[in-house]
């Protein structure tokens, strides 16, 4: 018999505060005790997580697939890199502008998405992802007259007490990445738990019924596309802050696939899924890559280096079979045996009739 926790009861709040504090403590510990290269990796994982969270809003909650998210990430990175280096913009201003540019492109891409569904939408966004490197190449050739664009070099603000050396910059980027990930997460979480969030899921589940309930399909779908693109822009800006150089091959269709894998590995349409998935994917990939150079048990072209990608692919496929709802779905299922969060009861009946407790073991809210 699992332990029952009432939603929003003092115990539930204590548990929430403990889990958030534990995560914060973990971040502080990592920050105090890690080499710049490790911090860099976590920053990269956060970038992936932000992209996956943004894709979750669009695909997980609103049911619109996008294989073009690499383009939003790339566009934001180029916007930031170019405006800071060529026009000497303040990097923080470039974050806002990059997100705005992505929002507008997202709205525009959302228009054909109104008429297209499933595989057709996948195709259109795939085309965008394919065209982007060519456009970026042209831009580099004609505007920068170089093969790469310099990234931004963020200087830690003085109030942080950090200096401008490599170690401190890595530390600053690490904290910045964490903050941006938290902000992105909170935005998507707030949307999901609101009236608009319900309408997004309603549109995904049944468009006709959603429209009859008064949901404006065109606005809901295009604006969601725009917001998702803008959040992907945050990931792109962060990449521009971390990478020394940006070129057209930094953001190809492969990046989009990576966002999708991270999302499904963690669990689409759950709030924590894309974050858990992104970190798991990133560090599984990293672990395999660093170790695979020693492995030669597979024949010919698959041995050594490539075996890492191969194994990761196999792992992801196997995983989707054992845990179709992703890591988060799997963890929730296990956690339910130990403890269940009982949703806040309905308003009591007006004429104090017998008030039954509504406990359905199949359903538990999120902690």
């Amino acid at each position, binding site marked *: 018999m699992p332990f029952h926790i009432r939603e929003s009861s003092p115990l539930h709040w204590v548990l929430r505060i403990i889990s958030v504090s534990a995560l914060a403590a973990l971040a502080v510990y990592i920050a105090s005790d890690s080499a710049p290269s490790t911090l860099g990796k976590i920053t990269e994982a956060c970038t992936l997580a932000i992209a996956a969270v943004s894709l979750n809003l669009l695909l997980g909650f609103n049911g619109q697939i996008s294989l073009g998210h690499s383009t939003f990430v790339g566009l934001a990175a180029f916007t930031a890199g170019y405006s800071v280096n060529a026009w000497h913009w303040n990097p923080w201003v470039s974050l806002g502008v990059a997100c705005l540019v992505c929002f507008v492109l997202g709205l525009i891409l959302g228009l054909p998405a109104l008429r297209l569904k499933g595989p057709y939408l996948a195709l259109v966004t795939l085309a965008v992802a394919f065209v982007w490197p060519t456009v970026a190449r042209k831009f580099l050739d004609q505007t920068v007259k170089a093969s790469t664009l310099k990234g931004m070099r963020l200087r830690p603000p003085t109030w942080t007490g950090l200096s401008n050396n490599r170690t401190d910059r890595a530390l600053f980027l690490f904290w910045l990445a964490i903050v941006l990930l938290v902000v992105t997460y909170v*935005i998507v979480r*707030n*949307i999901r738990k*609101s*009236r*608009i*969030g*319900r*309408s997004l*899921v*309603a549109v*995904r*589940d*049944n468009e*006709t*019924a*959603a*429209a*009859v*309930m*008064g*949901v*404006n*399909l065109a606005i809901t779908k295009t*604006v969601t596309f725009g*917001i998702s693109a803008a959040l992907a822009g945050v990931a792109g800006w962060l990449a521009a802050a971390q990478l020394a150089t940006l070129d057209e091959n930094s953001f190809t269709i492969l990046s989009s696939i990576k966002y999708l894998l991270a999302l499904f590995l963690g669990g689409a*349409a759950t709030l924590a899924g894309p974050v858990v998935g992104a970190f798991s994917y990133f560090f599984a990939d990293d672990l395999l890559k660093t170790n695979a150079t020693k492995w030669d048990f597979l024949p010919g072209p698959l041995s050594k280096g490539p075996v890492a990608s191969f194994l990761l692919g196999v792992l992801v496929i196997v995983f989707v079979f054992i845990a179709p709802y992703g890591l988060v779905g799997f963890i929730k299922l296990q956690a339910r045996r130990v403890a269940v969060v009982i*949703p806040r009861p*309905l*308003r009591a*009946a007006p004429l104090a009739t017998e008030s*039954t407790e*509504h406990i*359905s073991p*199949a*359903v538990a809210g999120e902690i």
Partner: protein
Amino acid sequence: MAMLDVRDVSVRFGGIVALDGLSFTIDEGQICGLIGPNGAGKTTMFNVISRIYQATSGRVSFRDTDLLQVPAHGIAKLGIARTFQNLALFPTMTLLENVMVGAHSTGSAGFIRSTLRIGTARAERAVRDDAGDLLRSLHLDHLAFHPAAGLPFGTLKRLEIARALAARPTFLLMDEPASGLTHSEVDELSETIMRIRDEFKLAVLLVEHHMAMVMGISDRVVAMEFGRKIAEGAPAAVQSDERVIAAYLGTTT
């Protein structure tokens, strides 16, 4: 003046004429039965009123509003809600959330306010409380936190009614609410419809093949066949109409 005035409405799908110059009216607070054999065009009429289908010609006015100028998502705000013949629920959502979506048209928080969570708490609580009351009123409260997927058909039919009522409609369209229900459930449904009509001061347009039920609760009945009206009037008169009997020949239950 009638609340709903359907005038000469035709709908064609390629060569098929689903509605052929159909006209009828419904008054405030009235339960109007709409009957006819399979394929008569009843669901098509529902879809014209809820703006899912485009009428080829004709006019529909609802309390001074030209309904055919209103977009599909604007219908709910006018006070029109409906249920679907073949269920159109949100399967991944809980019953409570399904009903809360039903209240979408009564809310106002848009993308910005939802993202920033500014001044949304009170409205959210009210929507949740009302949705809970509606679930209780349709005896679904014990399933409030259960996802809609996988529940019995009869349960989901009641959920559709609860969701439609969440929009606080004044005109409710019900497409075969009794299909798939057992005898005792049908009797209960009749009572429910009369009860919600009085409680919410509704007008109801009821499509149903279950003749005893339609005739039992309707104030007026419109009978149609091949997209045309063949009879109209008090239940008893329509039931004994020769053309209606001919249309239903042997299929009356």
